[in-house]
């Protein structure tokens, strides 16, 4: 966003952009950062940009991050804008996370289970001590390898479902809505809510999820399962009539097992919250699952009093591209509106002063 100057507005903008380009590049004697470095070594930033940009393409996301100087919301914005230019030629079949090629899979509700607890490349058990050796170049020693187990890895939710302990997943009713084509309207079905959450701001969802844990609309959540890995994307071209694999995406899936519901007549069952995000993004997937469950309060007969349970509040404010647009638009000239405010205020004050005088 640029300010409109009284004179020479266009030249001022050009100069601003030129300065921005220099600032973005930084010291020319320092090597320029490459998109390969960003894509390869700042993968989590790329994952977040793809998720909030709602577009899976690591190279483009890396480019956007470079262009935005690391401002990830600005980068997501670039991807969204690019997305608008892309024709949509097919719908993929729903991805089957059950057949994911898992690099990490954990469950907090069972000590051990078929498929095992696979830690994967996680920060979870690191100690957050700054590693100064990273300031210089180096290659870490090779991590130990072992052949993949090829053990069956059933979904934890299915294990609970065998005993009827968890509510069944909701059945899809007709075609899912499309948030990217049609405007959101309330009441919003779970399909649209999940879409909004999937592309929603990680920080906002994290705070809302956190609030449910601290008493603002709690659901006693447990991590049933988190799995991270590659999943195939398939489309069925009309000319062929059968599905073909067009590539893999890395996904993070989180199933939360939450507060059981029941009554004297209906046996209680655990309820669910679901989160799914592009790339390796556990914080996002977990927060999304907590908020998904909170937003289901109404349909599960709970009192929906907390902010995280307020569907309109959460869905209207979780898109950070919309949010940053409107918040930052305040920088645009508003002096016409403001002038009318000035005049109104002056008049009111004059009237009050006049009254005070006559009272005396």
């Amino acid at each position, binding site marked *: 966003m640029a300010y409109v100057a009284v004179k020479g507005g266009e030249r001022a903008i050009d100069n601003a952009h030129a300065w921005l380009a220099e600032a973005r590049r930084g010291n020319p004697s320092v090597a320029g950062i490459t998109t390969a470095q960003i894509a390869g070594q700042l993968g989590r930033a790329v994952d977040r940009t793809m998720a909030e940009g709602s577009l899976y393409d690591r190279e483009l996301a890396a480019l956007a991050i470079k262009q935005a100087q690391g401002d990830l919301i600005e980068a997501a914005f670039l991807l969204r804008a690019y997305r608008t230019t892309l024709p949509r030629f097919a719908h993929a079949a729903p991805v089957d996370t059950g057949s994911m090629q898992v690099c990490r899979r954990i469950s907090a509700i069972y000590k051990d289970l078929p498929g095992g607890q696979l830690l994967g490349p996680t920060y979870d*058990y690191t100690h957050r001590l700054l590693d100064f050796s990273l300031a210089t170049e180096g290659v870490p020693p090779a991590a130990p390898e072992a052949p993949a187990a090829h053990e069956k890895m059933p979904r934890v939710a299915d294990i609970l479902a065998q005993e009827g302990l968890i509510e069944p997943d909701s059945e899809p009713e007709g075609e899912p809505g499309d948030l990217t084509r049609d405007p959101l309207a309330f009441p919003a079905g779970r399909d649209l809510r999940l879409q909004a959450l999937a592309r929603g701001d990680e920080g906002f969802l994290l705070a809302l999820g956190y609030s449910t844990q*601290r*008493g603002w609309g709690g659901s006693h959540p447990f991590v049933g399962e988190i799995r991270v890995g590659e999943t195939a994307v398939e489309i069925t071209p009309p000319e062929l009539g059968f599905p073909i694999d067009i590539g893999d995406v890395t996904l993070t899936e989180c199933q939360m097992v939450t507060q059981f519901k029941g009554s004297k007549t209906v046996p209680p069952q655990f309820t669910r919250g679901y989160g799914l995000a592009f790339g390796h993004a556990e914080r996002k997937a977990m927060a999304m699952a907590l908020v998904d469950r909170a937003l289901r309060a109404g349909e599960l007969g709970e009192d929906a009093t*907390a902010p995280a349970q307020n569907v309109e509040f959460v869905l209207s404010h979780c898109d950070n591209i919309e949010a940053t647009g409107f918040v930052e638009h305040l920088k645009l000239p508003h002096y016409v509106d403001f002038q009318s405010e000035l005049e109104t205020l002056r008049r009111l004050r004059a009237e009050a002063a006049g009254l005070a005088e006559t009272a005396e």
Partner: protein
Amino acid sequence: MNTGYNFAYLDEQTKRMVRRAILKAVAVPGHQVPFGSREMPLPYGWGTGGIQITASIIGPGDVLKVIDQGADDTTNAVSIRRFFARTAGVAPTTRTEHATIIQTRHRIPEKTLREDQIIVYQVPQPEPLSRLEPSRAETRRMHALSEYGLMQVKLYEDITRYGHVAISYDYPVMVNFRYLMAPSPIPAFDNPKLHMMPALQLFGAGREKRIYAVPPWTDVRSLDFDDHPFRATRAPHPCGLCGATDSYLDEVVVDDRGGRLFVCSDTDHCETRRQAGANPLAAE
């Protein structure tokens, strides 16, 4: 041991601050004492409160046991034990009876603790009323005025809806007949162990910045109704490895056809029993 840091990571001023909070907590059993919790190298929610307490009371002569879910080799217990190995170099142990300090997440060891031991609990949510009343300003007032009717109402509602109290972990207790306390997410099965325990019990919540304590030999009672008394429940099976019928059990899923194995959650307890010859086939 990493000599770049003070013994047990925290500087001495911080340790002194934590110990003062501990002393206040011991003087008023069950009452939550605010303390200036520091950012630690492990995330909030992963035991920073417990770690700060342990770091403030541990000395070179101590023997430290760290468990999570009752086991010594769970990932988080390993991580915390490594932390103290790096920063304090104290002798570690997996044997409950050899430890002078036991830091625990979500379980109390099966073996009764002694007067010369300290157990440090990791607490996610120190406020027992938080799910009923999210405002901390209001819960402070409720504790000060001993207004706990709301919690009793919650138990009443459970009995109305389910026929019995539906709280299975972090079951609220009354400490020393005065303060309502959250015992941390230990299973209700463990609650009776809190009562008249010979060891000092310290509770640390790093993210919420509270410390509380139950001194040795203190009265601790789980809330209930006269006609619906508190019951400590466990899965109705013997341990599949050592045959114990009175320990808390973990459920292990062994196949995708519903196969299950139940084993002692307290790994030291189970292993000690097995070493002494116990097995699932021996009559109990």
